[in-house]
């Protein structure tokens, strides 16, 4: 795996929002890679920098105020950070696509859904208007909507249906990389399951590299191969799905699992993480998580943790796993 060039590679990405009053450190030195056909879950609370990471990959950050300060974003080995708008437009919608968070507001209310799908096909493929329209209908069928509805407007569809349309737009040109930003958060639970299983099927069919942004660990367990846990703009733990789910190491990851209800142990109380995500324009010193960490020591406020590799694929950013720091984790769920 290490020899193969990954479909998407992000290296030391740093993104800031620069406003009059403050500099918001949204993404702080994030690296990961997603090979062909694999899915990475990007998990974290609201405000952890997940969406900003995703928009950086699309190069759709609102500039100003957002600034891509440093780092590399490679599509199949090619760094796209220096790309011009024109070069990016050739990739957006064809090589890399994104499914947005809120289906209710992500479709243009005055255009038919068929038009909105056909538009991306016409942009990236040499086809006639009629062919694009036929292809748009096929895409609708693929996501489970009757092709006859191509002439209808977004307001005539339910939330789940709209999300399917958005997925159809994203997949219309067989992208190599698909970013799904909380694709199911705005939907009913039953619809969530439908949309997720559809996405899993389609991903397998097209062998797409996918990033699934979510704060729902259940969704991650369902379709991801690897998981990156994000906190205050950093990936604080990263590993294969089984490494994270069966053998998590970071106190924050422990907290995330602790705030999930456990169906096997119903009498057990939830253990929510106390406190709030730090203000990203005023991050704490040392480990960003230490003010909320139940194992924190004085050392944690001084030193920023480095990546500690526990296996080829599993790393954690926590002083407890670095040598000679004296920080210990005891008495929790971490093995």
């Amino acid at each position, binding site marked *: 795996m290490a020899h193969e060039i990954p479909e998407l590679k992000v290296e030391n990405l740093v993104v800031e929002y620069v406003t009059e009053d403050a500099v918001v450190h949204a993404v702080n030195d994030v690296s990961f890679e997603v090979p062909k056909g694999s899915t990475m879950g990007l998990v974290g609370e*609201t405000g*952890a920098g997940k969406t900003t990471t995703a928009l950086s990959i699309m190069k759709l950050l609102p500039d100003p105020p957002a600034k891509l300060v440093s780092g590399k974003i490679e599509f199949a080995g090619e760094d796209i950070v220096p790309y011009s708008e024109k070069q990016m437009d050739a990739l957006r919608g064809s090589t890399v696509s994104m499914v947005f968070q809120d289906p209710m507001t992500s479709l243009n209310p005055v255009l038919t859904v068929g038009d909105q799908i056909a538009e991306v096909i016409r942009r990236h493929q040499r086809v006639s208007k009629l062919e694009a329209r036929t292809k748009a209908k096929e895409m609708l069928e693929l996501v489970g909507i009757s092709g006859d509805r191509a002439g209808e407007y977004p307001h005539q569809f339910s939330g789940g249906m709209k999300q399917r349309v958005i997925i159809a737009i994203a997949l219309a040109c067989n992208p190599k990389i698909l970013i799904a930003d909380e694709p199911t958060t705005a939907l009913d639970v039953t619809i969530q399951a439908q949309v997720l299983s559809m996405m899993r099927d389609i991903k397998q069919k097209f062998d797409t590299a996918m990033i699934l942004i979510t704060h729902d660990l259940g969704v991650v367990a369902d379709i991801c191969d690897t998981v990156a846990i994000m906190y205050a703009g950093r990936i604080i733990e990263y590993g294969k799905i089984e490494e994270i789910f069966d053998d998590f190491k970071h106190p924050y990851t422990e907290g995330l699992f602790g705030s999930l209800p456990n169906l096997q142990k119903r009498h057990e109380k939830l253990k929510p993480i106390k406190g709030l995500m730090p203000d990203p324009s005023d991050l704490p010193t040392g480990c960003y998580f230490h003010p909320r960490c139940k194992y924190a020591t004085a050392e944690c406020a001084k030193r920023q943790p480095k990546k500690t590799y526990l296996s080829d694929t599993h790393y954690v950013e926590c002083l407890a796993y670095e040598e000679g720091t004296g920080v210990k984790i005891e008495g929790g769920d971490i093995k």
Partner: protein
Amino acid sequence: MKKESKKNDFQLSPEEMEILKKYKKRSFLAETWRGLRKNKGAVIGLIIIALIAFVAIFADLLYDYEEVVIMPDYSATLMSPSLEHPLGTDEFGRDVLARIVHGARLSMEIALLSTAFSLSVGGIIGAYSGYLGGKFDAIVMRIMDIFLAIPNMLLALAIVAALGPNLFNLILAIAISDVPRFARILRSTVLSIKDSEYIEASKAAGARTTTIVFREIIPNCIAPIIVQASIVMAAAIIIAASLSFIGLGVQPPAPEWGAMLSSGRSYMREYNYLVLFPGLAIVITVLAFNLLGDGLRDALDPRLKR
């Protein structure tokens, strides 16, 4: 695309809410002032209005009304701008600057009086209508809609044409045509705050409708009212000048800006300053009110706050 929010589940205790409310009430003016000061346009507008108001108030000390503004001086007719007459003299030899200065007083009077009238009448109608709701509201709002279906200028024109052209009728005409605007704004604001908790509380405490309307509702409508008032005052100045220009407003020899333009028009080929300067006075004054209105809206509209 949105800036990621800093706080997610942030909730205040009821005590904290109370403190916040009090703090908010007290600093309403301070808050507005801070917002205004940041807005360059609003500051410029405010300064200009202050200057015009100053000139209007002390017009008599600057130029004597009878001697300088009204009385013809046939030895000095149609003189181009000079040191003695910075903006020249008109066909009766009267100093144009002196007339513009006294015209400022007239324009400010018209704007203030007509707005005060339409604000109080429209405001009370709208507040009661919104507060009482039901049939009363439905009927009143239909009537207001009908008034709004008549373009402002035409309504004012009809009133002046029927009652006869003079200052009082002009003010009345402008005021009446603006009543529905205030009624609507007040009504929608009242509707939005009517069911809030503090109104419920005063009702529970047995306060009468009138008391509630005047004590609770009107004070909360201040923000949208001042924004609208500054915009309406700007429009009032233009309508007053327009009507006077066509002879249906303030009558000569009174130095109303529109009336000055009307008489200057006959001489505009050779003496174009006679139409230039009174017009500029209108533009500057209206611009100042609009700048202030824009600034106030930005400062007061919570939706635009970050």
